[in-house]
Each structure stands twice: as structure tokens, then as C-alpha cells.
């Protein structure tokens, strides 16, 4: 069952326009190392997407690509410029202690869609904002909540309610309906799945309440804004890195749950990049649902089944750690054909993963920062302001800046300057000892 193009939707048309713009920008900035990394990565995304659409000569990659319907997901995913012409450089952003995690955090995008500290909008009014997500006990997600709560705390007339729906989509919908019944002023959500979240968001919008989604998307067309993460740049950079340091080999995949945006866009982007590289072979394809133990098991079994694995592709941090543990336990870290190291590609810049990159166990990690909750809160505040006639509304699609990948030694790959773990200030989660 594949998603077909939303040909009739405005979103599709605007996306094609965006891609066209990005292609043009990409062509002219491919070798301009001074371009902000966001633009460089967008350019590369455009190039590889077009190349993949034209043809994918690697049979094994093409088979997986077609089977899971990546083309439609990728085509529907927006790629574009940052709101308000924002330019992001590594080093930007405020530092604070996370209210839930008690960790020192440097959030990269606190200057994006900026809002000064202090009372907002109508200073005599208290605004109630509901923030609903899943996974207070998941390191990525608790950091998301950290930044949202931090932003809300900067404004004395904002009351934020943070609720964990524990990965029950039905429950998240009930929470949103509850807030609509209590006439909250704004709602921000992190939807685990797209389809079930559309109707409650629509109901909130119909009731006049602005809604902003973070990271993953909903099926709602009416939503006020979507703050989108850089899934596409993640998968793309994993592919770029692999192409840079190797010619081919057997690849096993540790993927997130089938049908989730994170899985579709990252894996799809990766496959696009290696789609016409002859040397690679898709050997194992597992859905380990962001669970460390499942990834551990899948990798352990794959190592048993194949003695010639060259690459382990992971869509997330938990998966990467699980598979690394399995490889270490089996003493197979250097068992790639020719005696080289198995290349481990990861996403999610947790401190734990960064430590492994620094010590050379994990080869690269594409950051997917959870520290974007504050952007969502600011966006919804600005939507409330627009409703009250106090300011302009932010755009519907709020891209977050594409982040460069992290590698043990600094490299420049197709115009992308990588960052070393020590220089990456935004890692989330508790420090692994």
C-alpha cells in the first residue's frame, strides 16, 4: 500500500515550486563553502532527489525503495527556506538547565522566530497553552519537553500544561479535545502517528485555537503551523558519508516503525543517495521500533546470518546503541570484508552516541535535535497574537535549520562541513560516563 502523490493539494504544488527553487540554489551553491549549511544541504537534497527520480541503477536498493513506497513520502515532505530569512550558524542559541531533565542544555534555535523574554501579547491576560507529546521517559522526548517548558517559563503570562500521552494516539486526541473544551489559547503537539491526529487538530482549529505540530506531522490540512525537523538532511548525510568513505558492501538496516515519518524520510533519503552506487547491497532490513533491545537482537542475528556485513544503517540513536552493543558483544567490530571496521551510521545526537563517535565506534551521526520545543511554543504564541491582531502570523511550514553531521575528524563532504563531537554543543540527554 503506497501513498500516492497528493497531486491536488496545494502542498504538493508549493513543494514542487520549492524544489525548483532549491535546485537552482543548489546548482549555484554546490561548491560555495560559505553558504549556510541549511542551503547547502537543501541543494544536495534537491540534486539527489532528482537523480533518484530519474533512475536508480542499484537493483537491491531500488527494490527496497519501491517496496516501502518511499517516493511518495519523500515527494510529500517539504524542503525549503527558513522562516523570516533566518540564517543559522553552529554556536547560536541559549544555554539553560532543562526543567525536566535537570541537564545543562544549549538549544540551537532560540533565536529563530524570536520572542523577547517577559510578558507577551496582552500583558494583562494569562494565556493557557497545552503541550502534548509522548515519552517523558525517553531521552529525546524529554529534551523536547525541556525546551518547550523553558520557553513558556520565559513569559510570566504563559501557563503551560505538559502532558505525556504514552504513545497512545487515541489518548493524545482525548487530551486535545479536553483542552478545546476548556478553551485553551494554544496547543502544541508532538504526534507519534500522522493519521489519528488530524481530526482532533481540526476540531481545535475549528474552535478557533491555534495548533502547532513539532517534528512529526499530522494529517490535518488546517493546522496553523508545522515545525519540521530535518529528517531529509539526516538520511541524506548518512548516505553522503557512506559514499565518501567506502565503495560498497552489504548493508543492514535498523529502522523505526514502519509508516512513521522518521523512518520513511530518513531511510528514503539514504536510499536516494546510494541509489545509483553499484557497490551496495541491501542485506538485512529490520524494524526495531526505536527499541534498543530489538536492535540489539536484530543485529546479533544478522551478524550470525552474514559474515560479510560492511555497514549498519540506523534510523535512530537507540537503534545505533543497540546494534553497536551487539557488534561489540560478538567481537565483530572489525569484521567487514577485508578486515576493516563495520561502518555504523546513526541519527540523533545524544551525548551517548557522540561519545561513541569520538571513540571511533560509531562512524557518524546526523543530528536530529529535540531542542525545538521552544520554536513550537513561540510559533503558537505568535499565532495567538495574529488572532488578536497584534502581529503577523508565522508561516505554515516552519523548517528547522538543517544541521551538519558529526564525525570524529572534521571533513568536508560535497560542501558540507562536518563537526567533531567536542565542538557539537547541542547534544542532548545525560552524559554517558
Amino acid at each position: 500500500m503506497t501513498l500516492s502523490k497528493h497531486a491536488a493539494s496545494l502542498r504538493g504544488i508549493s513543494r514542487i515550486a520549492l524544489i525548483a527553487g532549491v535546485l537552482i540554489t543548489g546548482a549555484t551553491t554546490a561548491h560555495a563553502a560559505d553558504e549556510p549549511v541549511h542551503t547547502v544541504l537543501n541543494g544536495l537534497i534537491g540534486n539527489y532527489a532528482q537523480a533518484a527520480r530519474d533512475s536508480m541503477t542499484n537493483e537491491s536498493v531500488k527494490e527496497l525503495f519501491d517496496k516501502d513506497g518511499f517516493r511518495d513520502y519523500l515527494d510529500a515532505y517539504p524542503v525549503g527556506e527558513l522562516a523570516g530569512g533566518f540564517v543559522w550558524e553552529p554556536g547560536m542559541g541559549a544555554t539553560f538547565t532543562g526543567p525536566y531533565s535537570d541537564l545543562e542544555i544549549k538549544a540551537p534555535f532560540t533565536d529563530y522566530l524570536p520572542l523577547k523574554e517577559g510578558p507577551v501579547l496582552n500583558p494583562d491576560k494569562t494565556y493557557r497553552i497545552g503541550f502534548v507529546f509522548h515519552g517523558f521517559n525517553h531521552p529525546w522526548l524529554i529534551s523536547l519537553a525541556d525546551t518547550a517548558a523553558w520557553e513558556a517559563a520565559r513569559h510570566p503570562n504563559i501557563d503551560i500544561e505538559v502532558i505525556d500521552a504514552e504513545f497512545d494516539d487515541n489518548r493524545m486526541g482525548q487530551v486535545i479535545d479536553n483542552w478545546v473544551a476548556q478553551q485553551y489559547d494554544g496547543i502544541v503537539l508532538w504526534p507519534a502517528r500522522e493519521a489519528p491526529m488530524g481530526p482532533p487538530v481540526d476540531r481545535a482549529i475549528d474552535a478557533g485555537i491555534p495548533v502547532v505540530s513539532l517534528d512529526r506531522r499530522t494529517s490535518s490540512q488546517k493546522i496553523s503551523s508545522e515545525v519540521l525537523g530535518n529528517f531529509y538532511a539526516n538520511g541524506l548525510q548518512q548516505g553522503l558519508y557512506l559514499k565518501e568513505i567506502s565503495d560498497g558492501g552489504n548493508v543492514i538496516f535498523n529502522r523505526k516503525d514502519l509508516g512513521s515519518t522518521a523512518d520513511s524520510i530518513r531511510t528514503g533519503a539514504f536510499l536516494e543517495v546510494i541509489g545509483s552506487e553499484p557497490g551496495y547491497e541491501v542485506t538485512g532490513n529490520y524494524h526495531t521500533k526505536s527499541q534498543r533491545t530489538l536492535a540489539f537482537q536484530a543485529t546479533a542475528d544478522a551478524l550470525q546470518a552474514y559474515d560479510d556485513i560492511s555497514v549498519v544503517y540506523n534510523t535512530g540513536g537507540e537503534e545505533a546503541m543497540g546494534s553497536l552493543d551487539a557488534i561489540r558483544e560478538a567481537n565483530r567490530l572489525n569484521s567487514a570484508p577485508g578486515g576493516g571496521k563495520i561502518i555504523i551510521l546513526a541519527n540523533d545526537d545524544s551525548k551517548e552516541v557522540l561519545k561513541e563517535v569520538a571513540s571511533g565506534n560509531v562512524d557518524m551521526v546526523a543530528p536530529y535535535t529535540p531542542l525545538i520545543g521552544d520554536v513550537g511554543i513561540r510559533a503558537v504564541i505568535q499565532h495567538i497574537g495574529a488572532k488578536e491582531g497584534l502581529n503577523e502570523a508565522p508561516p505554515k511550514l516552519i523548517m528547522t535549520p538543517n544541521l551538519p553531521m558529526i564525525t570524529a575528524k572534521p571533513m568536508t563532504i560535497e560542501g558540507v562541513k562536518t563537526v567533531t563531537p567536542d565542538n557539537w554543543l547541542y547534544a542532548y540527554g545525560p552524559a554517558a560516563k
Partner: protein
Amino acid sequence: MSVANENLVSRSGGLGKTAGIWHLHSNTINLLALLLLLLIVGRILSPTFLTAENLKIVLLAIVGTSIIAFGMTMVVISGEIDLSVAGIAVLSSIAGAMFLDTGSAFLVISVTLAVGVVLGFLNGILVVGIGIPSLIATLAMLGVARALANITSSGKAFYPDDVAGYLWFGRGDIFNIPVPIVILIVAALLSIILTKFTVFGRKLYATGGNVAAARLSGIRTWRVKITVFTICGLAAAMGGILESARLSYINPAAFPGMELRVLAVTVLGGAALIGGRGTIIGTVLASMIIGVINSLLNQMGISIYVQQVVTAFIILAVVLPGLKNRLVAK
């Protein structure tokens, strides 16, 4: 779920066939045959399947579930059920993790096991002392334990990287056999001895078989049940330690859905929820069967979703043949 008259009826025929002093039930023989069949199939499909290396991997994968299943088997033999095992595993490991800063593996593990024992004991009190049906009592305990694990840890994970003694439980080895496997073997032997060769074991089967008759013959069934719940709590804590040590990761979201996996292994192993039936050996074989299936299917690249369906049918296939003589099944 123990109805006295129903037990009487099902006692005539069914799985009661035993063979000599080893009490090898026909069900156990079925399981052994299935396991051997699977190993042969595995060898045919993949030449490296029967190597020591691969078998080690399979065993390591099932260690946590198996040890907890030993505790669960005893609870089920006594006629009860324990759905809270995952909650006990996670709460006890979080409790132990609070002491990681002391650097003492001994302290961390002692606290973990102690909390497991206490929680298991509490289950026993709820079921035997207050009289809450074990399905509900342990279901509630599951919710409470998981909630407490989240609350006390504030949702944060712990990394025991600095405590070498703790990591040894997951990654060390004794005479080249990984520690978790050694512990698994020891736990299996102890459980078999307890259930088959001690007075307590006889009391356990009597309690599960017919609680009224057991009481009439002088067995303090309440003691038996509290004991097995406590053992199950201990097993859950131990399973939690082995899994966490292996990954060097103690987190409050751990072991999602483990209670169903443990139950699947337990019932596949021949334990029946009416009580009085089941063997540790059966559980061991069942655990290995499921481990081999999962490993084989993983290596063949078959998705975990298909594995689920296959596992379900295997359980049905094994459970079906022995049941035709029963008049009534609940």
C-alpha cells in the same frame, strides 16, 4: 481461575501421563521434539545455525525472559498469574540504579533484588492476604510499579558504565561461558530442584491442582502462594539486572510488553492457568523454541510482525494435541 469441580473433571485423562521417576510429561516430549525439529530446520536453512557461536547468541537473547518465566511458571503452577513482572523488573532496576554513584555493584544488585523480593511479596499479600484475584492484583501492581519507576527516576535513564561489577553480569564470562547463560543454567537447576525434588515442590503442585484438597491435607496454601510470588519477584529483578547489564542501560521505559512474552513461554511450556500443571523443563524448552524461531526468522530477514504471527501459531500447535481428553477448559 481455579474452580474445584472443573479440576476434578480435567484430571481424568489429559496431560497426566508420566513416565517413571523423571515425570516426563508427554507435553515435554512434544516440546523436545519440536525444538530438535527447529534446530534441524535451522541447520538446513543456515549452515552456521548450529555453531556454538550462534547457540550462544540464541541463549543470550532468551536469558531475561527465561529466568522470569521460571518464576512465572511456579506462580502459574500454584494456580495464579503474575502480570506485574515487567513492572517489578523496571522498578527494581531503577531502585538499584539510585545507588550507582556509590560504585558498589554489590549494593546496586542487592537493592535491586531486595526490591524485587518485596514487590513479589506484596503481590502475594494482595492475592492471599486480601483475596484480590491475581489477574487484577498483579495488573494493578504492574501499573503502580511502572508509574513509580517513572516518577522516582523522573523519566531519566542511568548508565552503569563505571560499575564494572554490574556490567560483569551482562558481559562477563566464567570459563568462557557468558555470565548470563551461567546464571540461566543455575536458575533453571535450582528451579527444577525446588519444584521436583523438594517437599515444597509437592505442596506447590498440590496447591495448584486442588486448593481445597491441599488445605484439607494440611498444606498451608497461602504460604505456598506467597512464596512463589516472592520468588517470581526475585526472578523478575534478576532478569532485569541481566538485561540492563548487557546493554549497560537502566531506563524506566524498559521491558515493554514483557509480561505477554513471559506468559507465552510459560503456557507453551505446558503450564496451565488452572494450576497444578507445568514444569520448569517445559518452560526451558519453550523458551528455547521461541528463541530459535525468532533468531531463525531474523536471520532469514523476516519481519518481527510475521514472527509474531508465527509464534502465535506455534503456541497453538503445541498446546492443541494434549487437550482433547479434557471435558471442560477455561
